[in-house]
Structure formats: structure tokens, C-alpha cells
């Protein structure tokens, strides 16, 4: 008999132990991919396209190949032909010709920075010098980077064979529009007819980059036994394995991926860039090969989040009840199809109970690096639009921005425009927490100061995770799992196992295994690790206890398993005798076979993370600079396993959102090449740009997790641009329709509006 301890009273959950990998990470011992050193290892350098769009007429690598110290030179001609085949990568399908083409350009380059050739040499300087001797002849083609321009009939075509997939039907003519998706609920005409007030605006957002501090890096060693070993900076070792195997057309079982410590990902380290290249260079040279991207490579060749155009219309009654919403969304996908428009459509009205809605979304190729996920991909853009319209309606009917959100908040039973009906969710609780907060109750005074709020949503996925637990002689346990640890997840998983077993976090040694040693586990992404791999750790703990009950009955107490009770604190009791987990584990070890437990999970339901943010700003009318005076992030974590890590996710996501809101953007030269591929010119927030970020953790239990855990990682990036835009409006009376709301943009708008006034 197992007594469920899901009673909200925990010994381990909710505490703040020091992370298991902490000492390594403060002493410089933690091994990131760039730190990997293998005997005989070569260094690689990638030659990249200097132009935004062009046909490759010829590549002459002869001078590079004969450079002393060079061991291998490759172009796409050295890579296998993957054909026009769609592969299911677990999190979504991808056409292999696009995946392979992004790794090394085939007949065309589609953005500045597109990889064209790669060199492996004795050191990085020799490799770079040799790469510069490669002669590539291009036929330069007209290019396009703005999503609406790319949708025009006469736009330069990136893929001559791409036809728009519109709800399953293919367009007759080739187009940059890869996909058109459409969602609706209710009757939109009837809905707007019921409205007393309708607001509509157009918005646009610039491409931004995830900005992880660790550049992409991979090491490949094509071993003499025919197996390819990869050490890499990835969010998912198994997807890296599959993509690498597909691009190189070798069996998955011939690739083993070791996920090294990873220096940030935020969605940008899921697609493979370097892994197939180091693999092929290693195969040809017979030596291990390491490539680290430069920072410019990272900005120019890895995934930004989509630039977007959005036209959104929202209607309400005079009492503030939102009745109808309509959205037309165009997101750029970068050079290859498959951007973030799906989640954009999902999230545009996801925070509200709106009876009638229509959403049309377009995924559009442009001459930018292939778009990748960035923390709640696609959601921040639409929140910037919708959350401002909600404020605008509130303002026009004289309602408080918090009240209108409380009145309309999505809750259990609300049906989202893309179909799902919410189970219990915590948006109302977050809004109520805002109402009770010191920040909301405080007054903000002074000229050109304003307060803004916004809500945000990210669905959070389940996907597949595995865990194995082995028991040591002394009753401590080892937890082997496959989720790359980007922010302390080893510890949040170990804590869940410790909670089940009645031991401490320190009694658990968590380890992230390579793809040979741990069961299949999907990416560290989708806010899923603490939820889904946590569920695996929990379930493995339960498996272990079930085994121990049987063994204790047979080997210790000579009774039926039914007569052994597992207490909520993890003790095993029989009649008046009680043993802790450690005591029983040590005893069973002496009696017989070692204890090993395992779990494989694939939770189906999303975890539905909602958050609400409040920002106070001051606008400098002379420069257009926005200073964030105070900021509070409120989010439903379901159950905060390690509150410091939850706070850290909230603060980190918020600050990425603040950067997106106020400064970050790609600038392009007239020829559509990136003009600001450095941290100096791509201006991410520094410490000096920010106040402390206050957090309030709400705990509205997720019914699909034994401890109520929801994912928290992504939602916090969603509300900041909208909250700051609303704050800027309240400070200046100016409504912001574009991101970033950088000093020149805001200054110009203030000038224009004061002239018009």
C-alpha cells in the first residue's frame, strides 16, 4: 500500500538546496563542449556566405586542401543526398533537404552566414586561413527580409519548388509562403455584432536572437568501429543524434551523443548546425574535430526568432466582456520553411475566454537564418498585440486594466481558438496575486512615469522522458536521466526523487547520460523537464518502493506485501516495526540482488503556464529612453520544486523580454546582410540597465503531476513587451505598435505626436 503524499506538505520540495553541479560550475571544472580536448583533435572553421541570397556557381577548394596543416575540406558535395523526405523528429517533422541544406548550402545560399564549406586543420588559425582560400563563385539574387514583402507575388523566391500549404491544399504557383493555417471558434460576424466597442491595430516586431553566451560548439570523432561520437552543446541529445544520423544518412545506432554542459539555449540549440559537419570532417581526416562558432557566426547563422507582422482586432461589450477576436499573423521562418506561426496562432487569444475568434497565420521564408524556437516561441509577439488591445478597450470604457483581465481570464473549461479546453489553470490566481501585491498597491508618481500590466501564456509540453535509479550500499541513490541541465534541472529532478523516497536532495546523485546510457528523452525545452522528467524521476522512485515492499515482505518481515505499508515520509512499516528508505535499502543489499528501478513516461497533456507582469517605467522625452523603475513577475508554477530556480526562470525570462521590448533587433544593410553581429551592437540588457526583478510564485496545482508541477521556463518572456508598451502608453499617451520600442523609435513617435497635437 502506498500512501500518496500529494497533500501539499513536503520535506524536500519547496526547499532551496545547492545544486549538485554547483561546485564544478563555480570552480571552472564543468566541461562545456568547447572545453573538450581529445588526443589528436583538429579544429574546424566554416566558410560562410557573404551575401544574403545567391546561387552557388562553383566552389574551388584546391588551395585550401593543399595548405600545410589542413586535414580535410568539405562542401555539400561531400555530404550524402538526403532526398526530399520528411523525417519525424519527435517534436515535429522536418524535410531533410531543408535540414541538410541549412547545415551546408547546396545549390543556393539563403542568408548571410549560410555555411558553404568547412575546413579541419591542426589549429584554428590554420583552418581559418585555409578557409579563406576557398573560392566560391556566386550568382547574386535579389533578397527579401521583411515578411510582408516576401509574401508578394513578385517577391524574390527562396525556393522555386515551394508551394503554399493552405489547410492541406497546395498552391499552384511557387511562393515564399510555406504554410497558411486557419483556426476559428464561434461565429465571428455575430460576435463582432454583439460588441459595443471594437479596437484594431497593426503591429510589427523585429527579429531577435536568443543570445546564449556560449557559442554553438561540437566535437566529432568518427571512430574506427564505424560509430560516430559527438560531444555537443545541445538542448536534446536524442534529437541531435537523430538529426545528425539523418543528415549523414547513417543508422541512429551508429551515433552516440554526449550532451556536455550547455551555456544557454532558450530554444536555439535544438537544430543541428555543427554536428554533421564535425562528423564528416572527422570521417575524412581520421581525427577528432572540434568546431566552435564565433559570436558573429552565432548571430548570422543560427536561429533568430521570427520577425512578425500582426493585425489584431478585439471587441467587447460596454461592461468589458471580450466577445470577439480576429487575428491575421505573418511570421518569418527564415531561410527554410517551418517557423513559429503555429504557436503564435495558439497564443494570440490564449489568456482570455472569448466566444468568437478567427486566426489566420502565415509561415513565410525570408533571407534570414532559419528561425528557431526562442522561449515560448511565437507567443511574445502576439501578446504584444493582444495585451495592448485589452488595455485600449479598458481605457475606452473606463475600466481598470486588472479588472478587465480578471473578468475575461481563461479558466478551467475555456476553449482556446485552436481547440483545446483548459483543465484547471492559474491565470485568475495570478491576477488576484497581482491585486494583492505591494507593487500594485503602491502609487507611482511623477511626470512621464507609467505602470503597465500584461498577461502571458505558454502551453508547456509533456513528451518523452526516462529515468533510472540505482541504489548504493549506503542507501543513497544515483539518478540517471537524459535531460540536458541548463539551469539546475538535475537538482529539481533529484528533489522530486528525494521527496518520494524520504531522503534528502544530497542523498541523490543525479547524472545526465549520453544517448547510449539513458532511455530516450526529448529536448530540454517546452518548459517540460521539471514536469516530465520530474514525473519520470517520481515514477522510478515509486517503482523502487514497490520493489522494496515485495522484497521487504519476503526477505525481512516474512509477510505478504499487503502487510507492508509505505508511509508518506518514505518509511516502510510492518506491524510496529519501521524502517527508513536508507535502512531498508542497505539491508536488502546485504540480502540479495542490487536494487535498480526505472521509469519511462510520455505525459500527453500540456502544463498550461500563465503569468502576469507589472512594470513601472519612466520615459525620457529628450532621448526616448525607457527606464524600468520597478518590475514584478507573477506566475503559476503549479508547485515550485526549487523556489530559487523558479524565481530565476521568472527573472531571466522577464529580462530577455525587456531586452526584446526596449533594445534588441537585427539591423540589416541595404543588401540584407546583418549589420550588428556582435554583443556590442546587438544590445542585450546589462546589469546596469535593470532594477531587481521581483517575483511572486502562485501555486495552482497541475492535475497531471503528482506534486502539481507545471513548467515555468518559457511563460516569463511573453508579457514584458506588452507590459512595457502599456506602461509607456500610461506614461506618455503614446501607443507603441512596433518592437523594439528603442530610444530612436519612441523619440520619433513622441516628436510626431507632439507635432500633431
Amino acid at each position, binding site marked *: 500500500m502506498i500512501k500518496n503524499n500529494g497533500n501539499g506538505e513536503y520535506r524536500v520540495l519547496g526547499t532551496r538546496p545547492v545544486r549538485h553541479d554547483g561546485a564544478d560550475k563555480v570552480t571552472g571544472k564543468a566541461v562545456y563542449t568547447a572545453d573538450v580536448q581529445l588526443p589528436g583533435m583538429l579544429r574546424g572553421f566554416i566558410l560562410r556566405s557573404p551575401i544574403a541570397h545567391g546561387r552557388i556557381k562553383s566552389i574551388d577548394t584546391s588551395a585550401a586542401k593543399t595548405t600545410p596543416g589542413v586535414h580535410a575540406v568539405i562542401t555539400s558535395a561531400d555530404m550524402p543526398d538526403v532526398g526530399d523526405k520528411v523525417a519525424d523528429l519527435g517534436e515535429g517533422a522536418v524535410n531533410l533537404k531543408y535540414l541538410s541544406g541549412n547545415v551546408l548550402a547546396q545549390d543556393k545560399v539563403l542568408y548571410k552566414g549560410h555555411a558553404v564549406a568547412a575546413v579541419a586543420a591542426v589549429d584554428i*588559425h590554420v583552418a581559418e586561413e585555409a578557409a579563406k582560400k576557398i573560392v566560391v563563385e556566386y550568382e547574386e539574387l535579389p533578397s527579401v527580409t521583411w515578411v510582408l514583402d516576401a509574401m508578394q507575388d513578385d517577391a524574390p523566391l527562396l525556393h522555386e519548388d515551394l508551394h503554399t500549404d493552405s489547410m492541406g491544399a497546395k498552391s499552384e504557383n511557387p511562393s515564399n509562403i510555406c504554410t497558411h493555417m486557419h483556426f476559428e471558434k464561434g461565429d465571428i460576424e455575430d460576435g463582432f455584432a454583439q460588441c459595443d466597442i471594437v479596437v484594431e491595430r497593426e503591429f510589427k516586431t523585429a527579429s531577435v536572437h536568443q543570445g546564449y553566451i556560449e557559442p554553438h560548439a561540437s566535437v566529432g570523432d568518427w571512430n574506427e568501429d564505424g560509430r560516430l561520437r559527438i560531444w555537443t552543446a545541445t538542448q536534446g541529445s536524442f534529437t541531435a543524434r537523430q538529426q545528425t544520423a539523418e543528415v549523414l544518412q547513417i543508422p541512429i545506432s551508429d551515433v552516440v551523443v554526449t550532451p556536455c554542459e550547455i551555456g544557454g539555449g532558450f530554444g536555439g540549440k535544438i537544430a543541428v548546425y555543427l554536428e554533421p559537419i564535425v562528423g564528416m570532417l572527422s570521417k575524412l581526416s581520421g581525427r577528432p574535430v572540434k568546431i566552435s562558432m564565433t559570436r558573429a557566426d552565432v548571430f548570422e547563422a543560427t536561429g533568430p526568432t521570427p520577425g512578425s507582422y500582426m493585425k489584431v482586432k478585439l471587441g467587447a461589450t460596454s461592461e468589458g466582456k471580450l466577445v470577439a477576436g480576429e487575428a491575421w499573423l505573418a511570421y518569418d521562418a527564415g531561410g527554410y520553411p517551418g517557423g513559429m506561426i503555429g504557436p503564435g496562432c495558439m497564443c494570440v487569444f490564449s489568456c482570455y475566454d472569448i466566444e468568437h475568434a478567427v486566426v489566420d497565420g502565415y509561415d513565410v521564408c525570408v533571407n534570414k537564418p532559419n528561425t528557431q524556437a526562442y522561449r515560448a516561441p511565437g507567443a511574445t509577439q502576439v501578446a504584444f498585440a493582444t495585451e495592448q488591445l485589452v488595455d485600449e478597450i479598458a481605457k475606452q470604457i473606463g475600466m481598470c486594466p486588472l479588472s478587465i483581465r480578471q473578468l475575461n481570464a481563461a479558466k478551467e473549461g475555456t476553449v482556446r481558438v485552436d481547440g483545446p479546453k483548459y483543465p484547471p489553470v492559474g491565470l485568475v490566481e495570478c491576477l488576484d496575486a497581482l491585486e494583492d501585491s505591494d507593487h500594485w498597491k503602491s502609487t507611482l508618481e511623477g511626470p512621464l512615469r507609467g505602470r503597465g500590466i500584461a498577461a502571458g501564456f505558454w502551453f508547456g509540453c509533456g513528451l518523452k522522458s526516462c529515468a533510472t535509479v540505482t541504489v548504493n550500499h549506503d542507501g543513497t541513490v544515483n539518478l540517471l536521466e537524459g535531460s540536458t541541465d541548463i539551469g539546475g534541472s538535475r537538482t529539481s529532478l533529484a528533489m522530486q526523487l528525494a521527496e518520494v523516497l524520504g531522503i534528502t536532495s544530497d542523498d541523490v546523485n543525479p547524472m545526465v547520460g549520453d544517448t547510449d546510457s539513458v532511455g530516450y528523452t526529448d529536448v530540454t525545452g517546452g518548459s517540460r523537464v521539471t514536469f516530465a522528467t520530474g514525473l519520470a524521476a517520481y515514477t522510478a522512485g515509486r517503482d523502487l518502493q514497490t520493489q522494496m515492499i515485495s522484497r521487504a515482505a519476503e526477505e525481512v518481515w516474512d509477510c505478504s506485501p499487503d502487510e507492508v505499508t509505505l508511509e508518506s515520509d518514505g518509511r516502510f512499516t510492518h506491524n510496529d516495526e519501521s524502517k527508513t528508505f536508507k535502512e531498508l535499502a542497505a539491508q536488502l543489499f546485504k540480502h540479495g540482488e542490487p536494487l535498480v528501478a526505472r521509469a519511462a513516461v510520455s505525459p500527453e497533456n500540456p502544463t498550461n503556464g500563465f503569468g502576469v507582469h507589472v512594470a513601472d517605467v519612466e520615459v525620457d522625452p529628450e532621448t526616448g529612453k525607457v527606464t524600468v523603475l520597478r518590475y514584478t513577475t507573477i506566475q503559476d508554477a503549479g508547485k515550485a520544486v526549487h523556489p*530559487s530556480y523558479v524565481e530565476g526562470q521568472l527573472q531571466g525570462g522577464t529580462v530577455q523580454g525587456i531586452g526584446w521590448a526596449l533594445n534588441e533587433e537585427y539591423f540589416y544593410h541595404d543588401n540584407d546582410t546583418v549589420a550588428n553581429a556582435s554583443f556590442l551592437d546587438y544590445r542585450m540588457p546589462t546589469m546596469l540597465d535593470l532594477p531587481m526583478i521581483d517575483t511572486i510564485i502562485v501555486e495552482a496545482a497541475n492535475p497531471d503531476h503528482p506534486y502539481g508541477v507545471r513548467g515555468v521556463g518559457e511563460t516569463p518572456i511573453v508579457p514584458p513587451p506588452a507590459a512595457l508598451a502599456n506602461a509607456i502608453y500610461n506614461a506618455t499617451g503614446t501607443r507603441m505598435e512596433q518592437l523594439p520600442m528603442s530610444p530612436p523609435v519612441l523619440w520619433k513617435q513622441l516628436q510626431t505626436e507632439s507635432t500633431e497635437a
Partner: protein
Amino acid sequence: MANKRHVSTTINGEPKEFLCAPHESLLEVLRDNLGLTGSKEGCNNGNCGACTVILNGRPVDSCLVLGVEVEGAEVETVEGIADRNELHPVQECFLEGAALQCGICTPGFLVASKALLEKNPDACEHTIRYNLAGNLCRCTGYDKIVRAVQDAGARMAESN
């Protein structure tokens, strides 16, 4: 290729000699020649601070210093902050305060924070934010880093 030069220096209190080409940065020397991979390369042009080391008492971006420039100098890296197995207060406070997530910027922050606190252990929030603005972190939003540095300053003042 230029001939390699011989350099004698002190790293983390120990005398070291190495050979390096004139164009190699101190960061390359530390990581590739000496195996001290705790200093990280985030940008290789002085904008992120992940490679911060203390050179003759001052925090510098080691990617902007040439290897040959440290002849006769004293260099301190993240590997030299702890005293044998005893973590420095700044390391302890980063761990206890959860001031790191992915950890790639952490070595640079620790080195820069130690340099600041040794001069000014009771640095206020603004002073910390001003002095560490050259170190980028993309995970934490900086809140917990600022607090950890403040806590470390207090702990250092106590132990003195």
C-alpha cells in the same frame, strides 16, 4: 606562421612558462595551451566578460590581451579563486543564492566580483551593477547575481 615566443608568468600563484605565437590571445593560451578551460569564450571581442581574469590586480577580458603580454605578470583565473577545497565567499554566495543557471558566464562574474569586492566589500547595488556591466548573463536577469555579490561582500567583511 610567426615563431612562438617563450613567456614566463605567474598563474594562480604558481610560476608558469609557455610558448605562444604572437597573435594568440591570453584566453587561447589559458584554454588551449595550459588547459585552464574555466575561462570561457563568449564573444572573443571584449563584449561579454566570460573570459575575465585578474591581471596584476585588475579585471581584464583575457580575449583582448595577447599571451605575450603577460610576461612577468600575475594572472588569476577562476581556477585560482578557491583555496584548495575551500570555496571563496563569492563562490559560496553564488551557489547558495542560485546566482547561476547555465554557468557559462559564471567564471567571468566570479573573477570580476572578487576583484570588485577586494577593493570595495560593501559595494552598493548601483556600484555592483556599474562595475559588472561588462559581464553579460542571459539566464538570470542579474537579480540573484547582484544579491550574491552583496552577500559575498558582507561575508568577506565579516571574516576580515
